[in-house]
């Protein structure tokens, strides 16, 4: 059974269903106060401590997505509380969730972080989300290094699904199916990385974006 450490949201539940997984819900980590001093992380810290002691799994997927990604917004028009909500809260949630993933992944197992990331052509108005996407990629690579000695692989899958607002910048994506769906394109990429066939693949980022980022 695949363990999915993620938000209890419709999009993540769709991923859980497609992977026939079991969801461990990450707290929202924000409460009503988005203060710059991060007082809202208490709940997240307690959750991390508790969940890290849970049973280990061979396959662990992390999808600490926001409830709603919100509309694109230029950085110039982004107030500090919005920045905290769109960048800092997700950063803390992802960091806590990735720590739990490392603790809950069995020796020889695999971790896949599934992060929302706009393709480079389409990232205007998505500064916060692009920053968090890159941060999660780096966290996955850090886990690949720290957990590799016990045989654990760690990779990331990126999806622009909820962050893409038409019309997209030309040229059009290679596949008409862009930006893809959670159940088909995203879950498929995750299964590839969890598969024993990917035994030699770690510290890699797979863009499940129908070729949009061309990497």
């Amino acid at each position: 059974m695949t363990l999915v450490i993620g938000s209890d949201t419709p999009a993540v539940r769709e991923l859980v269903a497609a992977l026939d997984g079991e969801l461990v819900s990450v707290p929202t980590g924000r409460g009503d106060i988005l203060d710059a001093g991060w007082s809202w992380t208490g709940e997240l810290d307690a959750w991390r401590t508790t969940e890290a002691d849970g049973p280990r799994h061979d396959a662990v997927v992390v999808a600490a997505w926001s409830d709603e990604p919100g509309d694109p917004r230029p950085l110039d028009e982004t107030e500090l509380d919005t920045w905290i909500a769109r960048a800092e809260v997700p950063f803390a949630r992802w960091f806590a969730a990735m720590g739990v993933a490392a603790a809950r992944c069995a020796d020889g197992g695999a971790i896949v972080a599934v992060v929302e990331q706009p393709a480079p052509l389409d990232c205007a108005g998505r500064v916060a989300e692009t920053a968090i996407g890159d941060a999660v990629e780096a966290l996955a690579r850090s886990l690949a290094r720290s957990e590799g000695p016990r045989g654990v692989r760690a990779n990331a899958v990126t999806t622009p699904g909820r962050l893409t607002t038409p019309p997209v910048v030309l040229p059009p994506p290679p596949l008409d199916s862009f930006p893809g769906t959670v159940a088909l394109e995203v879950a498929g990429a995750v299964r590839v990385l969890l598969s024993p066939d990917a035994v030699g693949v770690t510290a890699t980022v797979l863009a499940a974006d129908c070729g949009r980022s061309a990497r």
Partner: protein
Amino acid sequence: MSRVVLVTGATGGVGRGIALACGSAGWTVWIAARRDIEGAAVAAEVTALGGHGRFVHCEASDPTSVREAVAGVIACDGALHGVVANATSGLSPRPGAVGEVSLADLHDHVAVSLRGTYLLAVEAGPHLGATGGALLVLTSEAGFEGKAKLPTYAAVKAAQRGLVRALAREWGPAGVRVNALGPLAATPAMVEAFERDPAMAERVLGRSPMGRLGDAATEIGPVARFLLGPDAAFVTGATVMADGGSCSIS
């Protein structure tokens, strides 16, 4: 042409190197930092090299402080051609795996590096638009590769690179460029770390084609000056590595 630039966290290391390189070109360089005495000393070094060195107190993660620092520059010099988001958490070299780092420590990393870049961009943006200026953000090879023992530092450095990529798209139409620079410099912190952990020195230098660290003032700073200046007028959204070829996947 003389330019006015502001560099955060420029009391030492790479930030100081960037300030000195810009000063040697005759630029006006504002040292924006928490440590007043050290900042004033670097400003004096800038002036001694033929530039105009100035100091302004600045807490990179504090909105009011950043706003006042930028306003102070404009009040004094009337223009801003470049800003450098260089300030980094003092916890950056503290090791700890992802599950071991407290969220309080994560907060410090994120507040100084990522929020600090956001605040600087928001406050300086209009002034850079007026001059067709540039924002430069200091990142690291860690942001590309991840680090087993420094995952927090790696994550914030990666986040800054993502910020650069997206903001370059937003500011391009206004003629404002946004780039990142990944140095591998012989900073006092790095030299001290090497002395403390010779295996680290072997690890870091062994992977580098050039087999050494770069000089912050003469090898890293000039690259920053290029990215801030008119010779880089068509360079935006890029991460330039000044690391002697150390990072293998940039």
